[in-house]
């Protein structure tokens, strides 16, 4: 017959097994999980790690260990772009493309961390990272505790347009510079200045076209589509500066196209400025051919 007597040991065992152990597991799980971004079903969790030296890195943060370092995977960071035509002070770069080609997984010294924040899922950084993954044809695993978000067509189109406008801004800036130079009193003739300026503008257009071609290749257009795209977009961008437009934080691959075009624009502009501002060297008179003395025959 079953005893109805209260057995404290048995009750304590039940409480331990059915209440205390699950509660401890609940605390441990909750400590490592954000209810707003649950594993498997929630949005991607990206963290911003701000360092004492002012640098910021974005990526998947693993701070579960008790060691003195945090591990940041799939890391991105800002690089200076104040002189660039993106209308933003910074450009986004992916960690791993540097000269020393570091492998994935930055180990950051905890003592050098200033703050840790959660990156907004719809922020400019998250969108640019999503587009970069789309451009790199990244295929995140179907089941992952923190599944990478890939940008959709809408965000990709916005980034493509942002890149086009940055390329156009670079062209317009250098063309303006040439126009301003032509307004000055130059040490060369008007026609010479015009020839140099037209040649430089032609070179700037070539840079713009090659940047658009690189953009077409990067977003995955075929050769025929890319050719048509370059011709139509180049015509559309002619005469537009987009100077006051708010800049778009571009995916690293798109930003590198803009940066390359900026460098080439500057080279063309500098070469033209040099030609426009340096006086032509006057041709030195050619020495007249003097008849060589012929030896006189001795008598």
């Amino acid at each position, binding site marked *: 017959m079953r005893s109805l007597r209260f057995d404290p040991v048995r009750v304590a065992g039940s409480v331990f097994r*059915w209440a205390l152990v699950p509660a401890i597991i609940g605390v441990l799980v909750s400590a490592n999980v954000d209810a707003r971004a649950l594993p498997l079903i929630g949005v991607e969790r990206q963290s911003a790690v701000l360092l004492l030296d002012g640098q910021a890195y974005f990526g998947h943060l693993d701070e579960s260990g008790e060691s003195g370092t945090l591990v940041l995977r799939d890391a991105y960071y800002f690089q200076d772009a104040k002189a660039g035509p993106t209308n933003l002070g910074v450009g986004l770069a992916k960690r791993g493309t540097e000269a020393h080609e570091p492998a994935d997984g930055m180990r950051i010294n905890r003592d050098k961390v200033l703050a840790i924040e959660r990156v*907004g899922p719809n922020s400019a950084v998250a969108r640019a990272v999503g587009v970069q993954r789309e451009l790199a044809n990244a295929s995140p695993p179907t089941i992952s505790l923190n599944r990478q978000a890939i940008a959709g067509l809408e965000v990709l189109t916005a980034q493509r347009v942002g890149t086009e406008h940055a390329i156009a801004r670079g062209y317009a800036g250098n063309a303006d510079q040439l126009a301003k130079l032509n307004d000055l009193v130059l040490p060369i003739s008007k026609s010479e200045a015009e020839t140099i300026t037209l040649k430089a503008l032609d070179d700037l257009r070539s840079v713009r076209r090659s940047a658009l071609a690189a953009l077409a290749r990067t977003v995955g257009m075929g050769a025929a589509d890319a050719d048509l795209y370059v011709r139509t977009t180049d015509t559309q961008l002619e005469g537009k500066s987009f100077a006051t437009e708010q800049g778009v934080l571009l995916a690293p691959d798109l930003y590198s196209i803009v940066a390359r075009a900026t460098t080439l624009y500057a080279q063309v502009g500098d070469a033209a400025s040099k030609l426009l501002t340096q006086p032509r060297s006057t041709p030195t008179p050619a020495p007249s051919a003097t008849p060589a003395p012929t030896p006189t025959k001795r008598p």
Partner: protein
Amino acid sequence: MPPRRRLRLPSLRLLRGLALAAGAFLLAFVITQWWDFTVPALGRGGYQAVFLANGQTYFGRYYDRIGAYAKIEDVYYLQQTQGADPNAAPDTRLVRRGSELHAPENRMLVPKSAILFVEDLKDSSPIARFMHEDKK
């Protein structure tokens, strides 16, 4: 003829135990999310100024936490912008954190080793009043 196997249903006691375990797990999960390992601080001000090792100062609701990190919520900071005149004093304004390129969420974790000191703001402080009004 082989003997018929009877399907054994889980006992009521087991079901009751599983329900209790699920309840305990969920309760602990929710409480921990709400608690966030913060240490209660009685009688403190509504807002604090957190001075960091790199010279930066954040304003907001500071919470000491168990572990290596403290937490600041509703974070604001001072932003200085130089006008067209380089000789003029820079324009200083209080900016709510969140409008940056990475659109950070409301909660900022700061390693305790990066904090120089924390001060409560008086209720009459213009920064506290601004934050209070901005929150409305």
